[in-house]
């Protein structure tokens, strides 16, 4: 397979975008990506979106977005893998260019969550409808059960969970596209409204609207466009049981570990080679489990690692410099692509106040459900 680069990227602000529709936000992000690269045509399009059918009653969004982007003839398809729809769409776009079939592919992610749908129900469709959701469990509830098990098994503290949110809000405050740009304290996180014990609303990513798009291209095109190319050097994806209860160990996200191992192997890199990572912190506990599965720290020590500041902007391995899902926002289908946008900006040196110094290798990790699917990508500016 041939080498592939990201040649353009763009995203909308994340948040409650009541004046803009699903198609508006997608096209806004897509035009930014196209203008960023300075290309005049795309060969095809992948649109990551979890459940536009439940959120706004619209399916068939591949064709819809191709139409409104002014390219109604190109192949376009929606990709769904719950909250990692965007990351999985990116992987398919990558393969299309790498195979030689297409030279320039647009990969986007979009979700419109604030139009009045029952969001808790819509998100819960990513869990096992018959054997989890039927019993009244919610996504905060599933991650709360992971948190409780992690605290019991490894001694992770309530304060350490809160420190993930504190760190991500600090970073998000520096990101003009973030939904919540205010700092929070450990005390505020712990005393916030309880959603599912022990997790509060400030342990949880918000309900958001937003879109993000990138352009993938072959290296000969990448050399001719506006911006320096950011090469994709590793991809890995994996699945696990849909139901959390069916896992051997409730505190282990096996799909994250396996997807990371595949991406590291392809890139010929190890965890200590990574300069920054954008990971799927849908809840504070998720980031702690993920940094363990990615190999940044030993299993069970993610809480302590966070407390020691190693994941901060100036730490050993900055995690979620964008503010993560917690502060930047989590329009579910857009998240995986927005992670790529952040890593590309970091590797180009365009991240302004949240720039990670000397960033050469970046990683994205995007996850669906309670970890039933995960996808990891590794990028370099070298």
């Amino acid at each position, binding site marked *: 397979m041939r080498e592939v680069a990201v040649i353009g990227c763009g995203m909308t602000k994340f948040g409650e975008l009541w004046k803009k529709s699903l198609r508006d936000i997608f096209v806004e992000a897509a035009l930014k990506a196209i203008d960023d690269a300075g290309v005049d045509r795309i060969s095809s399009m992948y649109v990551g979106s979890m459940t536009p059918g439940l959120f706004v009653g619209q399916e068939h969004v591949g064709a819809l977005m191709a139409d409104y982007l002014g390219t109604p003839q190109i192949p376009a398809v929606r990709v769904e893998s719950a909250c990692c729809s965007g990351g999985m769409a990116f992987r398919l776009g990558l393969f299309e260019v790498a195979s030689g079939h297409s030279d320039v592919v647009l990969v986007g992610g979009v979700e419109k969550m604030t139009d009045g749908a*029952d969001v808790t*129900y819509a998100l819960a469709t990513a869990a096992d409808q018959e054997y989890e959701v*039927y019993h*009244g469990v919610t996504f905060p*509830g599933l991650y*709360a059960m992971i948190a409780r098990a992690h605290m019991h098994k490894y001694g992770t503290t309530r304060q350490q969970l809160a420190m993930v949110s504190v760190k991500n809000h600090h970073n998000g405050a520096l990101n003009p596209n973030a939904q919540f740009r205010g700092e929070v304290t450990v005390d505020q996180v712990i005393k916030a409204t309880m959603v*599912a014990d*022990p997790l509060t609303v400030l342990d949880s990513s918000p309900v958001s609207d937003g879109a993000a798009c990138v352009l993938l291209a072959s290296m000969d095109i990448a050399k001719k466009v506006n911006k320096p190319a950011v090469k994709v050097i590793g991809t890995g994806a994996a699945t696990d049981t849909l139901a959390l*209860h069916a896992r051997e160990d409730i505190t282990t996200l096996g799909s994250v570990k396996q997807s990371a191992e595949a991406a590291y192997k392809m890139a010929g890199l190890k965890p200590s080679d990574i300069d920054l990572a954008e990971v799927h912190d849908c809840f504070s506990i998720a980031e702690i489990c993920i940094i363990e599965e990615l190999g940044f720290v030993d299993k069970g020590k993610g809480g302590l690692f966070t407390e020691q500041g190693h994941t901060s902007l100036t730490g050993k391995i900055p995690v979620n410099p964008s503010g993560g899902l917690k502060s930047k926002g989590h329009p579910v289908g857009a998240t995986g692509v927005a992670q790529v946008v952040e890593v590309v900006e970091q590797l180009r040196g365009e991240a302004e106040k949240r720039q990670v110094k000397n960033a050469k290798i970046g990683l994205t990790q995007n996850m669906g459900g309670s970890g039933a699917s995960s996808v990891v990508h590794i990028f370099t500016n070298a």
Partner: protein
Amino acid sequence: MPSPRYHREMPQRYRLEAAKCSGCGRVAFPPRMVCNCGSRDFKGEKVSDYGKILTFTTIRVAPKDFETEVPYSVAIVESDNGVRVTTQVVDCKPNELEIGKKVKFVFRKLYTEGHTGIICYGYKAILI
């Protein structure tokens, strides 16, 4: 939940019917066609009525069907014959739950289906 779909799951929800893999001995709940060991040969088995709490939470923001019940406790329970399920734990206060506590499965009403008013039943757990 439409009623044909509800009807299909009744053996599991009402009677905890499972299937034991002839290859590796693992009990699958719900029954499935292929075991993760590769075997397709199963024999009928029942989930044990007793088990213990592996982890738990208290749901305070619920989907519409459960809105009137908050706060309620949900746990992952491992039965004595190794089946793990997600279930509500009832007839107790949220602060009485602990990891490792023994429970028994009981037959209860889960919720009333919105449009048609069908009462949905199933298993819940109580502390013993």
